[in-house]
């Protein structure tokens, strides 16, 4: 089964972390990524660019139309996403709880829909 994990943040929150603490913070995340890539359970992990770089894309009269946005109503936006492939939901939840900052902020956890028929 595949699962998506999302963590949220904003500039204000990141700016509050002292510069000298960043290397240790990044190392923590790298260690997590390496650990679960090695077990084959973490398929991808990516951080997203800042909110100001995000765009909205539509098609108008068959032509692409790109505008700024989204203008979020929530204070925090997606900071990074992780795609897991695990034996069970229990195991995936265990990995989510092992995320470096799960003790500070919750990790959003979404089972992914799939085409496979679940059983006989």
């Amino acid at each position, binding site marked *: 089964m595949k699962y998506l994990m999302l963590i949220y943040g904003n500039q204000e929150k990141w700016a509050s972390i002292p510069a000298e603490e960043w290397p240790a913070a990044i190392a923590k995340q790298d260690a997590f990524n390496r650990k679960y*890539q*090695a077990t*084959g359970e973490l398929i991808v992990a990516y951080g997203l660019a800042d909110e100001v770089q995000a765009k909205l894309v539509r098609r108008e009269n068959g032509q692409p139309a790109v505008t700024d946005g989204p203008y979020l109503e929530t204070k925090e936006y997606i900071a990074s996403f992780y795609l897991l492939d695990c034996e069970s939901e229990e195991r995936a939840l265990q990995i989510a709880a092992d995320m470096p900052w799960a003790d500070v902020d919750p990790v959003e956890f979404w089972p992914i*829909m799939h*085409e496979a028929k*679940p059983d006989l």
Partner: protein
Amino acid sequence: MSTGQGDVEDLLRELAPQVLAALVRRYGQFHLCEDASQEALLAAALQWPSGGRPENPRGWLITVASRRLMDQIRSEQSRRTREELIAIATPQSELLGPPADAEPADGDDSLALLFGCCHPDLSSPSQIALTLRAVGGLSTAQIAAAFGVPEATMAQRISRAKQTIGDSGFDFSLPAGAERTERLRAVLHVLYLIFNEGYTATDGDALTVPALAQEAIRLTRWLHWLLPDDGEVTGLLALMLLTDARRPARTRPDGSLVPLAEQDRQKWDQAQISEGIALISAALPHGEVGPYQLQAAIAAVHDEARTMADTDWPQILGLYDLLERIAPNPFTALNRAVAVAMVHGPDAGLEVIATLAAEKPMAQHHRLLAARAHMQELAGDTDAAAADYLDAARRATSLPERRYLALQATRLTRDGTVRPEGIMTRQARSAAGPASAADG
């Protein structure tokens, strides 16, 4: 692709586990042997279609693989010491050709290889991946495609699994007694999981996305050939054949699923059904009856019925009673509840479901909700049925199943009172396609 090339591929897939097993038996070092036999198979795949097949394909592959293994070992460490070590470690008889009248001993080797791939130290996805690679002879790319993960992820998984086996020492002696039964159960479970994984809605190109159900049947057939007297191996093979026989009727041209009750039974593969019934009929009277044999027997009763109404539900209920006694499991209990409803009416089924719903892990499961909805509808309680279908649709994670359940909810509410707002937003989000069905 010419038929000649297809024949070569089939032959190589068949020989792959034998070659690897022979190498591991002689030299140990599973990891190196696996690489070497893959290289030999690749060389054969390139050379045989044009250059012709050697007289003894198996011998050719083992010789080429052994040479590759030597090359690898030479490049790894000083040539002389390693070669001497291998020469010492190789029993003298292995260096000689087998006598012409000798029985090929590959059965045991290949079986040991299969047991090794299903080693209890490995996680279930690793067991599956390694079995498909080492015994099934599939490439890493093919296995990755079949499971919808990147090739790098699958390569890592396989490499870790090989390492684990290497660390714990690849035990090439077949376990005996109770341990053998235990390990064989693990092997059967892996084959069963591979078969189940094969139920994808789309049939991919066989070269890039192999049909896992077919692969599982091939491997189980081979295991049955090695262990013809094991009732559970026979039972599993029969279960796979009897279930797979319904494949042509199970999907619509658009890929959506058709439930058992609505399937066109003319499309069922009668040859496969006959084979499955013959297998299970031969296995059941002998020895201990296990869960695979019972599930095969249930599948056989379904397959023998010309229409849903002709189904011998009392017999199915009897088999579920037995199955629940020897292998209790919430899903068996749920299936039994459905059989109870078919034999004694929806109210009796709902009573059984009520006791199941009291247990936490099942209470909110979409299959329990779907079964309850079906019985409520039969009992005439349309509102409750629609609400349960709606809830079931929200909780299903398989797309075809969610579409089917959502359709049932809307079907019941179109002229009724419940507003399926939740369903519509959910459907829009998952870009739901045409209707499809759950069970089949």
